[in-house]
């Protein structure tokens, strides 16, 4: 088995026992990148030179007997909307094509302290708006399991890189499913943490009240390791939660005895592919076999969640993306004859169609005269959806559902139909609207050999229970399947 194929927790032990060095591991990953990246297109920017330098430093520290974290020396890819000091952060947009942040996101400071090796910046839908990574200004990323298919999005590069073993683990961000959906399509594990568990400082904002950074890995334990390294209260982010954060990977237990699992009927209805439904229900049966108690529940407002999500997220996006005006950094149009002309041309040329669509939608729903009918109502729905989850979690511990209604579709198949594209988020957006944690874990394939994801949703700050459940399933019935590349 090649080093790049291995899980982070195995590699961590091998590094600790000095069976391998971080330089060897990093070289192995970059060899893999060199051999498959042409097909996958997961990266926007590679960081090979610095990665090897970091790996050397970590090896040196280890040789000197310094105590290092579990992630020290592990190659990790970073979604290109997370600010990396000195390393280009484009959000896969022409607008930020040459933008190099002067500061690190809080998660990057944490990961640097942990001694990780950053392989590069991963492709995404432009400003995280999209469900297929096709809205990237640079290139579409391909699904490693079927290169003519999308990897999902917006963290398509993050999921594809892990699935193609071009990074051992990665960071993504999830505003309406952007970690879980590509994880599901690419057959890897992705965690969307509770809103407030991971600092958003340095994450280029799409929808501030919904965005959350989270890990993607080949197995549950890897995801638990990375999550424990990045979570925690941050004084630079007013919305980060002030509480105790326990070690998720040390406390990981494959134990679901007595766990109450709820199956919301709204997540198994119309539009959900039969093969997906079957795979997910089989996974739930496996958990039941291990001692979980399963019952059907209802979350009636789910039908309205997608509308509420696209109103709230677009409203916030229209304001968050207003700063890209060509004045201080990023793209500025070549020729203009006034300030307004400069704004208009810069933004028309710098943003892609999907981003412009959301900015227009968001501007509209916040406009005087329309605010109450759209934004106001969406916020009311948000409250109702949260209340429904709250009352559901009185009787159950974990909700099980599909992550996405179907398996990965073909590149170009939906790009001309925004509504169809938006509908792929139907099972994931409720979690962001309610600020809950959720994990997507592979649960078999459809008849095209395309991965299906089981989504597990928990109450706020129940990441441990979610990961334990996913771990129990993974150990007996699941697990990563290496794509043939």
């Amino acid at each position: 088995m090649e080093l790049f194929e291995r899980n982070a927790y195995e590699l961590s032990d091998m590094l600790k026992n000095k069976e391998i060095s971080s330089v060897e591991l990093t070289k192995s990953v970059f060899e893999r990148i060199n051999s498959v990246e042409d097909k996958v297109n997961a990266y926007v920017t590679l960081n090979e030179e610095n990665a090897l330098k970091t790996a050397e430093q970590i090896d040196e520290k280890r040789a000197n007997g310094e105590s290092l974290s579990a992630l020290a020396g592990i190659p990790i890819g970073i979604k290109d909307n997370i600010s990396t000091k000195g390393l280009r952060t484009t959000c896969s947009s022409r607008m930020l094509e040459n933008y190099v942040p002067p500061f690190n996101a809080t998660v990057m400071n944490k990961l640097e302290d942990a001694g990780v090796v950053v392989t590069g910046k991963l492709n995404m839908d432009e400003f995280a708006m999209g469900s297929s990574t096709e809205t990237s200004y640079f290139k579409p990323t391909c699904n490693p399991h079927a290169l003519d298919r999308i990897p999902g999005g917006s963290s398509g590069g993050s999921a594809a890189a892990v699935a193609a073993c071009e990074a051992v683990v990665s960071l993504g961000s999830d505003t309406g499913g952007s970690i879980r959906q590509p994880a599901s399509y690419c057959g890897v594990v992705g965690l969307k943490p509770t809103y407030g568990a991971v600092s958003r400082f340095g994450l280029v904002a799409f929808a501030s009240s919904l965005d959350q950074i989270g890990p993607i890995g080949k197995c549950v334990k890897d995801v638990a390791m990375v999550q424990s390294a990045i979570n925690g209260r941050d004084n630079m982010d007013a919305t980060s939660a002030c509480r105790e954060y326990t070690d998720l990977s040390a406390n990981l237990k494959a134990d679901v005895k007595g766990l109450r699992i709820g199956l919301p009927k709204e997540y198994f209805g119309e539009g959900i592919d039969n093969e997906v439904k079957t795979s997910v229900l089989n996974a739930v049966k496996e958990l039941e076999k291990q001692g979980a108690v399963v019952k059907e529940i209802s979350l009636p407002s789910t039908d309205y969640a997608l509308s509420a999500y696209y109103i709230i997220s677009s409203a916030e996006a229209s304001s968050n993306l207003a700063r890209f005006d060509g004045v201080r950094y990023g793209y500025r149009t070549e020729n203009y004859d006034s300030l307004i002309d400069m704004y208009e041309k810069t933004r028309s040329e710098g943003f892609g169609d999907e981003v412009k669509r959301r900015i227009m939608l968001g501007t509209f729903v916040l406009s005087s005269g329309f605010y109450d009918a759209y934004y106001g109502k969406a916020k009311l729905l948000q409250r109702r959806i949260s209340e429904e989850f709250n009352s559901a979690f009185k009787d159950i511990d974990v909700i099980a559902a599909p992550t996405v209604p179907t398996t990965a579709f073909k590149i170009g198949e939906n790009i001309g139909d925004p509504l169809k594209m938006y509908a792929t988020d139907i099972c994931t957006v409720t979690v962001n609207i309610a600020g809950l944690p959720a994990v997507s874990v592979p649960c078999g394939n459809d008849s095209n050999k395309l991965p299906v994801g089981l989504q597990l949703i928990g109450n706020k700050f129940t990441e441990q229970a979610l990961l334990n459940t996913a771990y129990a399933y993974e150990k007996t019935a699941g697990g990563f399947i290496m794509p043939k590349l």
Partner: protein
Amino acid sequence: MVRGYEVVIGLETHAELSTNSKIYCDCKNQFGLEVNSQVCPICMGMPGALPTLNETVVDYAIKMGHALNCNINRVCKQDRKNYFYPDLPKAYQISQAEVPLCENGYVDILVDGEERRIGITRIHIEEDAGKLLHSDKFDGCSLVDLNRCGVPLIEIVSEPDMRSSAEAKAYLETLKSILQYLDICDCKMQEGSIRCDVNVSVHKPGEPMGTRSEMKNVNSFSAAVRGIDFEVNRQIDILENGGTIDQETRRWDDVKGESVSMRSKEDAQDYRYFPEPDLLTIVVDKDRVNNLKAEIPELPNAKILRYVKEYNLPQKEATFIAESVELAKLFDDCLAKDKYPAKSYSVWLLGDLVKYLNETGKNLSDTMINADNLTELVGLIENKTISNAGGKKIFAVILKEAKDVNKLVDELGLAQVSDIGLLEKIANEVLAANEKSVNDFKNGKTNALGFLVGQCMKASKGKANPGMMKEIISKKLEEI
């Protein structure tokens, strides 16, 4: 009333708060530093940077809320006000829309000796924007200085309760003195620490309110007066010529002394306010609100009223003392002794003391004057131990040196002669030596009396009690 029209004025006043750091980041809040030197990713609105609220801003705003008798909204949000401009790096200003931190208050002001109550609609917190720099040297470009981005502001919105430019000026001056008393704004007008927008309308008495115009760029209190007077006359001219007033935003050009239209109501910007998702709801507990209230001293506008009403000080003098924190404290400490009339103190404060402070540029705390030695000095004059002139000599010493007032009377030989025998002897000598003046007096030239008393004072080397001296001379002249 102006030209038969009633004038209605409301003011929106922005005051920069004098916190150490900015409202949403740790950058220094200081005027006049090198261009773009007090900036960070947060106040420059770099991608991914997030604001965190400086709680001192909330404290300062609540203090102002208390000072203006407002209700404090212990739970309130911050909102985004969206618009594009190169001095606004995020393209939105974090402000407060629906629910401000403070609302429904009032402030009492004095205008020409009359007390007026002006309603306060609301006070909210927000961040300042940067500054555009224009110059021929910039080769056709405008440059931007972001040092001011994120400087904390409070916006104080008044009810349309003012009826003249004089009232508006008095209102602004009252706000300024309160801000200074609370020590929450340095009130340097030339640095733009207080700026205001003026809303003006006119109507005939008994008729409904007129359409208002809003005037921006009013950067001093005197400009507010000029701007209001101009705007009132402009509106009346239009109405007198049968025209109608447009609801519009105008810009005051103080150099030209006129306002020009910026945009009409139809062109009004839609700021698309919505709750700022990067910040938590502001929740202030009751104790904090009460503790801040306890820190509010007696405010200058209340002091002025008290000085005028209780001590019969003229408004101008009362205002002068009340608006200086130091002078007012000295004055109040003296009066607290309840020994001598207020005016016997105010003459010193407004006279020799202020003169000295102005000449030397010193503060009261740099002098040795305090309520104790000033009261002793006033006492010596009141009981005629020394003359006013003698008092001035002692005052000049105790400004600079911590010397005992009573000892100074002896040291400087200032004790007045009140011994009748001695005074009569002086009078006899002076009358004998000035026969011509005595005759003048007898012939009806009453001012000869003053001359003769003056000669007596001179003969006594200034020590004679001038009152007694005058009495004796008068009596003797009649006897002659």
